[in-house]
């Protein structure tokens, strides 16, 4: 018996060596595209998504560069420049970048809009970071552990969901003091995480039964590794979409808050405060409403295009179509 098996394994050994030699000589070496190359290919094919990314990029650059270049212009009132027309240089030859003119208090609108965009984008991104943090944490625990823990967490989600979001946010800002950007971010984050948690839980419930997750368990991988390495990445597609839409949502919520007068005070500039301030001049100077309105619409549209594009691009089951 042993003799025979030795012969057999020697035989196998020899055949393998031959195979290996033959293979290294004539193996099909078509280039292999990595996952991220595929993602980029798919993303670039989606025109709307590229448009969305471009718009967000331009707005972000605008919101970062202009306020730092124009310094305090976004809140400097000038007595005799109320509703002054657009200009690039003042009469004494100073470069001011006031391409959108001045508002009723003589503040450079272009600079103020940039600052407002900055505030709004900051609120959007930071709120989404909180939303995703809580949502992913709760959702993955509920989906992975299941049982009564899942039950309790989902009831908490139901409770949060049943509260009227805007009023909770109003309460929080009233309690911790309105006018602080971080209070608003915190308030939006605390009320907005339910969708992400539900999405992730649903994904996890089905992923838990997937063979490679079972295989990872059978190989002795601990839960945190299974979640982080084997369950989160394939569940990311809907989460990414929820996150990009969440940016748009948070920007809108902040705008509505400020518009109602419960958001940032008149001191600071956000799209909402600009809209609110401009409302009284709706008929005399409608452009003052339109500028922040357009930026708001652009952010929301671009974010949802971007989200759709990312969802399609990140899906590992999709392939790049041949032209």
């Amino acid at each position, binding site marked *: 018996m042993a003799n025979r*098996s030795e012969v*057999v*394994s020697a035989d*196998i050994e020899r055949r*393998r060596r031959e*195979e*290996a030699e*033959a*293979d*290294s000589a004539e*193996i099909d070496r078509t280039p*292999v595209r990595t*996952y991220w190359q595929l993602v980029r290919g798919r993303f670039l094919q989606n025109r709307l998504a590229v448009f969305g990314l471009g718009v967000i990029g331009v707005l972000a650059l605008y919101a970062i560069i202009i306020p730092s270049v124009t310094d305090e212009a976004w809140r400097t009132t000038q007595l005799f420049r109320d509703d002054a027309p657009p200009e690039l240089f003042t009469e004494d030859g100073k470069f001011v970048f006031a391409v959108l003119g001045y508002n009723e208090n003589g503040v450079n609108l272009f600079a103020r809009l940039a600052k407002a965009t900055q505030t709004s984008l900051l609120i959007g991104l930071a709120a989404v970071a909180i939303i995703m943090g809580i949502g992913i944490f709760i959702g993955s625990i509920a989906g992975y552990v*299941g*049982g009564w823990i899942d039950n309790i967490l989902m009831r908490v989600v139901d409770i949060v969901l049943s509260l009227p979001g805007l009023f909770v946010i109003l309460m929080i800002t009233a309690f911790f003091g309105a006018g602080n950007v971080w209070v608003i971010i915190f308030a939006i984050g605390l009320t907005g995480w339910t969708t992400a948690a539900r999405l992730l839980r649903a994904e996890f419930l089905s992923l838990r039964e*997937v*063979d*490679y997750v*079972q*295989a*990872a*368990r*059978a*190989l*002795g*991988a*601990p839960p945190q*590794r299974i979640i982080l*390495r*084997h369950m989160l*990445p*394939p569940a990311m597609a809907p989460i990414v979409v929820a996150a990009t839409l969440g940016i748009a949502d948070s920007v809108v919520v902040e705008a509505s808050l400020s518009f109602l007068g419960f958001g940032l005070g008149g001191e600071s500039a956000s799209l909402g405060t600009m809209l609110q301030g401009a409302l009284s001049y709706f008929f005399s100077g409608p452009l003052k409403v339109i500028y922040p309105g357009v930026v708001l619409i652009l952010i929301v549209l671009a974010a949802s295009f971007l989200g759709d594009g990312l969802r399609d691009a990140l899906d*590992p089951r999709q392939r790049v179509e041949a032209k």
Partner: protein
Amino acid sequence: MTATARHVGPLLEVKGLRTQFFTQDGVVKAVDDVTFEIGHGQTLGVVGESGCGKSITSLSVMRLIDRPGKIVAGEILLNGDNLLAMKEDAMRDVRGDQVSMIFQEPMTSLNPVYTCGDQIAEAVQQHTAVSRREAWDRAVEMLRIVGIPDAKRRATEHPHQLSGGMRQRVMIAMALSTDPDLLIADEPTTALDVTIQAQILEVMRDLREKNRMAIMLITHDLGVVAEMADEVVVMYAGKVVERADVRTVFGSPHHPYTKGLLLSIPRLDERVERLEVIKGTVPSPLNLPSGCLFKRRCPYRMRVCDTAPPYQEVQPGHFSRCWLTPAGEPPDVGADAEGPEAEQAADALTVAPR
């Protein structure tokens, strides 16, 4: 594994294992009082129809039974340590290190978003303190050992770029990368075509001899069992109905179910008009018959079969759960009884109509 304190006796002992699923429709006894053992370097074949509890037995050994399932009784001793008494942390160190498992579906058992080498290296790093680089080298080496050509390049490829047979080899490479004492192979060749099957079996046999690794081979393919196993356990509706070494099972099976299974294999060397089949279907686990679980389908059915048959040792080392005597005769029940009891006994001997 280092042989510091080697346990004397079999590698794996499963004693009186009961795994049940508590569903809304009732309790499903998926594994009911199963006992077997596997020695070092031995191969045990676990055979049976779909739904007879083979896979649940293997998942129980790994302690991977999820709600609503639960292991309600029994002992699983690996090198003398009871796995069922272990903490989850300790169990995690057993999984993949001492006991590895390969699954039926090579197509879905690998994560599609990581390269094959990555996934093997992950398993290596899980159980041994090696650097990323060393784990990767080990992964490539394992791929070479299981016979994947151009292993270095294949390690950098994703599962979808490999064929089914190659993927199963990757799974085997992953399971064996930590030198386990026991490999549980749950239908490792079912999803593969015949030529690939033979190659995979060859790889497994080869590695078994090199590493002195025991294999628990779960399959419904008796051909694979005949080729690989030393001992065979035949399961039916959650119970072990026959257990013997491989020659006995194929040469002189005792239990009618085993006989039926053997008769239903197509043979190339005999010309038969029609293939024998076991009539009927496996009873629903929620509605098991009283007495012998196989009685509704059994050609030898007797009155005594309404009471649960004994698990008798028909020959040394050959167990069967059937009323038939070791010689295969109907049992001599109540022969010295009188009156109505004697009548009953006489009845018991006649084969009841279907």
